[in-house]
């Protein structure tokens, strides 16, 4: 392959004001991070609630959570995104529908759709991790808590979840990274996050290889950084003997 790499392309003007192409990547990275973090907050909260529901003694709650998980886990993410973006707004009350489609900035409505979509999709996966974490704990833990008179919400908040989360930090980390990687689907509904900016740069400059190389490096560094952060978190909250107890 005979290709003349030209890395200076990122510092060339885009022709819009004093903007250079690197600015596009920075703006795209900003959207990617904002999107992923918002979706992760939804996923973590909802996923925890669902995961707890799956371990409750009552059958109704457990079943409802199971239905949720199967539904969101078995439909491709992209299909879910199109549903959230193209179909769901039509079902909303007319006022909200018009507000969503006309008053909101297109970037904002796309952002909302992807955040909700990615959040709910990932919640199903977080749910399964949380459930596994809770079920890995010895039954004696909840029995001891109940025997002391703790109520069910206290048993979960103070005894089961703090242990379950410590056990599932590694798989949870990979879900966290998946959110960042999956956020690239947003480019398909016009949100100018990292991948969309990359494609646009490639089209404007014809420097396809450079643009995608830079995008690859940014995704890689971002995810490696997050993984290192999560490792630190894992070390910080580690308590002696917990993992060993998990199997009992």
């Amino acid at each position: 392959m005979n290709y003349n790499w030209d890395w200076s392309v990122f510092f060339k003007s885009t022709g819009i004001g004093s903007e250079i192409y690197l600015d596009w990547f920075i703006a795209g990275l900003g959207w990617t991070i904002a999107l992923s973090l918002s979706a992760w907050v939804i996923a973590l909260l909802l996923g925890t609630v669902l995961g707890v529901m799956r371990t409750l003694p009552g059958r109704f709650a457990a079943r409802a959570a199971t239905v949720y998980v199967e539904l969101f886990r078995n439909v491709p993410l992209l299909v879910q995104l199109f549903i959230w973006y193209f179909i769901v707004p039509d079902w909303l009350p007319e006022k909200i529908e018009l507000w969503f489609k006309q008053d909101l900035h297109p970037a904002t409505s796309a952002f909302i759709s992807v955040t909700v979509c990615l959040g709910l999709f990932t919640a199903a996966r977080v749910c399964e991790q949380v459930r596994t974490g809770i079920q890995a704990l010895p039954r004696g833990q909840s029995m001891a808590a109940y025997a002391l008179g703790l109520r069910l919400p206290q048993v979960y908040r103070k005894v089961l979840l703090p242990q379950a989360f410590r056990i599932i930090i590694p798989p949870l980390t990979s879900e966290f990274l998946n959110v960042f990687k999956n956020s690239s689907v947003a480019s398909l509904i016009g949100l100018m996050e990292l991948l969309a900016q990359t494609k646009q740069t490639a089209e404007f400059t014809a420097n396809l290889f450079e643009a995608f190389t830079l995008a690859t490096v940014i995704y890689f560094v971002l995810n490696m950084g997050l993984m290192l952060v999560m490792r630190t978190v894992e070390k910080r909250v580690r308590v002696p003997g917990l993992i060993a107890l998990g199997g009992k």
Partner: protein
Amino acid sequence: MIRFSNVDKWYDREHHVLKNINLKVNVGEVVVVCGPSGSGKSTLIRTINQLEPVERGEIWVDEVQVNNPRTNINRIREEVGFVFQHFNLYPHLSVLDNITLAPIKVKKLAPAVARERALELLNRVGLAHKRDAYPANLSGGQQQRVAIARGLAMQPKVMLFDEPTSALDPEMIGEVLQVMQDLAKSGMTMMVVTHEMGFAREVADRVIFLDHGEILEDTQPEWFFTRPQHERSRQFLRQVLAPMHG
């Protein structure tokens, strides 16, 4: 204090684990429950705080029927301490936090008060110096002493022990039994499932022998050890008292 009347329990509707249990434990009494494994003794004490439900009969703690659906079982559990065979300390909390969790959350005690009380109890079980340790860094005997302190922190009216020394290495059994003996001397009402016949002989006011879910003996320790009424209790005693388990 505790009363069973005509209590029956089945597992999976066919395995009859408790058969027509009638018994009474009076205030300040120490009752040892023994019997071969699978006899239902652990199940028996777990029904008192309803960790195990029963299918028939009535169980009363202090004039409250615990297996009545209208009873708030949490109120009973606050007053009935329970010590498990495997200690079941919370591994993510320090020794002190293990003890103060329930008093703060359930009894709404001010953290400072709960802490002070926990330290007193830790002193009593000889582990004040371990207050900031995590359970995994304690020996089995130490963990069980913390578990006893955790139960006592709720200021229970009665303490239940479910084979408290069975998971311990032999050299640690003594320290736990010592704590239990001190507790008995202080006047605590206790029900203890154990194979420690020395403890039964020296500390218990009464010994209950359970076999196949039935109470076969309910008598004073001297009578139980010298003149057991049933062939099955004689056989059990021969086995647990024989030095070589021959």
